[in-house]
């Protein structure tokens, strides 16, 4: 039974699966309500939920913030893998701190204060997951551009999304070369399993060398093509910037989104007041 389970887990956590999840996260949610929002509004929204929780200690308000970001993350249709990594990160952090605190005569009060910390971390991370994986890379980079982030950086973000699938595929094929031609240690005993794991990690590390070389080889054409498409020319032309930014438009949808967020935040404070009394 355990054997079967571990096999099926191993089967799931293949590079293929990772690739699929990364791509899903990058491209699979460009038609959600979140993705349609003006990136500038979303970035400001993120700034609020990324910073403000750190100055609050009210559990009710924090809980309210958390619920809101959970909802937006749901609406943004973030890939399960990202959420899984998020959950592991947050829970292990809190759980571990709680166990340690028990050694130092901690009690339920400790748990409550830990809950506050956890809520802060979780709210902040979910807000960033919503914005950065919910937005389509190009819109995100346009938003950043508007806030005065250098053009090179915002282009890099969009370009990273372009080469991501290429890199993943290249890595997958190189790993396959190792898997096919190499020989993984037998993994029926515990020692074998450890050796097998070490071998797998080593293979991933060794794959980086060919991966980087292959990518470097490809980039020659890319650099020349960028030149031919006038990319360098554009970075000194303010009109290009203006055209790019003219596609940003904040309208009713954004107003509703902001209003709803503000109303929810206000409600949280009101409820906290009532409960507090």
């Amino acid at each position: 039974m355990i054997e079967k389970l571990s096999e099926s887990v191993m089967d799931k956590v293949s590079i293929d699966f990772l690739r699929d999840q990364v791509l899903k996260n990058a491209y699979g949610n460009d038609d959600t309500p979140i993705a349609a929002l003006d990136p500038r509004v979303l970035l400001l929204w993120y700034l609020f939920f990324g910073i403000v929780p750190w100055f609050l200690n009210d559990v009710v308000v924090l809980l309210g913030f958390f619920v809101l970001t959970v909802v937006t993350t749901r609406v943004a249709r973030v890939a399960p893998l990202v959420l899984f990594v998020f959950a592991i990160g947050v829970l292990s952090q809190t759980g571990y701190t709680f166990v340690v605190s028990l050694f130092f005569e901690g009690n339920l009060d400790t748990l409550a204060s830990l809950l506050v910390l956890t809520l802060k971390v979780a709210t902040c991370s979910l807000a960033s997951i919503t914005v950065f994986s919910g937005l389509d890379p190009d819109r995100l980079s346009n938003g950043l551009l508007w806030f005065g982030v250098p053009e090179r950086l915002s282009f890099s973000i969009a370009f990273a999304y372009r080469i991501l699938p290429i890199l993943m595929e290249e890595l997958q094929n190189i790993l396959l070369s190792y898997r096919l031609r190499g020989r993984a240690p037998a993994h029926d005993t515990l020692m074998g399993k450890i050796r097998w794991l070490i071998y797998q990690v080593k293979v991933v590390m060794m794959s980086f060398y060919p991966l980087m070389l292959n990518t470097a080889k490809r980039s020659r054409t890319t650099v020349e093509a960028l030149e031919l498409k006038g990319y360098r020319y554009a970075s000194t032309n303010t009109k290009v910037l203006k055209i790019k930014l003219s596609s940003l438009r904040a309208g009713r949808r954004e107003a509703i989104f902001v209003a709803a967020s503000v109303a929810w935040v206000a409600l949280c404070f009101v409820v906290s007041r009532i409960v507090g009394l």
Partner: protein
Amino acid sequence: MSAVSLRDVTFTYPGAAAPTLRHVNLEVAEGDFLAIMGANGCGKSTLCKTMNGLIPQFIVGDLEGSVTVAGTDVATAQIGELAQRIGYVYQDFENQLVRPTVIDEASFSCLNFAYDDYVERGMRALELCGLADRADSYIWQLSGGQKHLLALAGAIALEPDVIVLDEPVAQLDPYHADQTYKVLRELNEKYGKTVIVIEHHTDFIAEYCTSAALMANGTIAWKLPAHEALRRIDDLAASDVHPPQIALAGRELVRVGALPENTLLPTTVDEGATAFWGVPFIPRERAHAVHPVGESAVSFRHVDVSYRSVKGEPRRVFHDLNLEIRRGEKVALVGANGAGKSTLMKLMCGLVKPQAGEVVLGDVSTRDIGPDELSERVSLVYQNPEQMFIKDTIRADVEFAMRARGVADAAERAAALLDRFRLADLAGHDGRLLSGGQMRRASLAVGIALDPPILLLDEPTANLDIGTRQEITKLVSDLRGITDTVVIATHDMQLVCQFADRVIVLTDGEVIGDAAPDEVFMNEDVVMRSGIRPPEIFQMGRALDCRAACYTLDEFLSCFPAWVAAQRGEKNEIAVSGDRDGRECA
């Protein structure tokens, strides 16, 4: 006025001992459709880069002479100005695409040059290339052919007068190459664009181009109307360009006196049909290959495969696929890109597991053994040889699998293999830094290092110039005696004809043809549906007699009794003269 004019152009790359271009003079008339032919490394790509200003503005080096494009002097013009005169599509066009979505990519240059209507311009380019309905797709969702068309759309979005393409056919299957060429023809005929292609494939040149130039040793040897150029058989052959087989056949028939001395050599099937009309042609009866009834090497039983897709339903590749490959068979898998050829190969080496049904290798299901054990039964050589190189020298790469399995004489066996593939001198080099043909040879050596009973080759001749292609074809044919069962996925019908005894035609994950090459190529329905392109000489034979099935020049010629008789006569002559010589010596 000339669209492109090069006068006495000489170019030396920095640090190079000799110039890559030597005193090149070339005038390309407005509205011309020009093919530039020449061996690998003769300077074709460099020549094109002088036209679009990459040389000298981006790639520094020593440039002499003058280059003008549509009246603009390349050396002094802004790259921006030039980009609106000339568009360029690279051979490795996939790396030319820099934006995540199709419409972004097509309109990117217009945006960079600050056109307010950049989206409309991008859309117009997409429409011209037949990609308008994919505007909102992401680039990785496109097929290879569509990516090529997109690279073309990106190049024509600025409405340049001249369009340059570097080896469009090399990376595409014939069906998609045809599509690209049809778009080019429309741009040329309807919109008056001047088109310049670097091209080796004389069948495409004969069909689409109006003129052709031959480059050799960094200079233009000549520039002629296309059909005239293709008749210069000796010049072409000397430059590693495969002359049209029909022209070669024509010359042979002239030589033996079956055609008059002054015959214009035919270069296309239509011209051939006219030229060979009246010369007696008797198709040979071909013995149909008997299907071997040996034991099974691989069998697919009710196999279902689908891939997770990023959005929506999983994409189904195979449904209830049943197929049997027997020991000792030499199989060619053909069909357009995306028909399932690669998936079929991955199924055989256990990289993809079927969702339903099973793939059985000999006596075990691929489900039951790990990939490293499978690799002793079956070996896959990727289409992209770079991905086979995981060590920093090719010697280490060839040895890798043997060492991992503790083969005692790994070093000796590797040395023997490197020798066999004529790589001994390069053994210490990184595989990535070799030329196309050398890389391919190295990847073959890596593939057969473990002496696998089943060898799978994915597109072994893609991306190679004709000379190298013939070399690889020969190497692969030599494998016939060594490796037992070989399966090749390919678009190269010449390779199919020389190698395979069984052809499996895939279209949309379905086997629509599975027979000896003859029967498959003779079946018009299969040829139509799969978009495969039988070799020209085969089509020529069929045009003369629908029963003819010739795959090589010799097979075609031997259908002419006149040629056979002359051939026999020559042999006798040689034998007789040999005899006489012998007697004299005695």
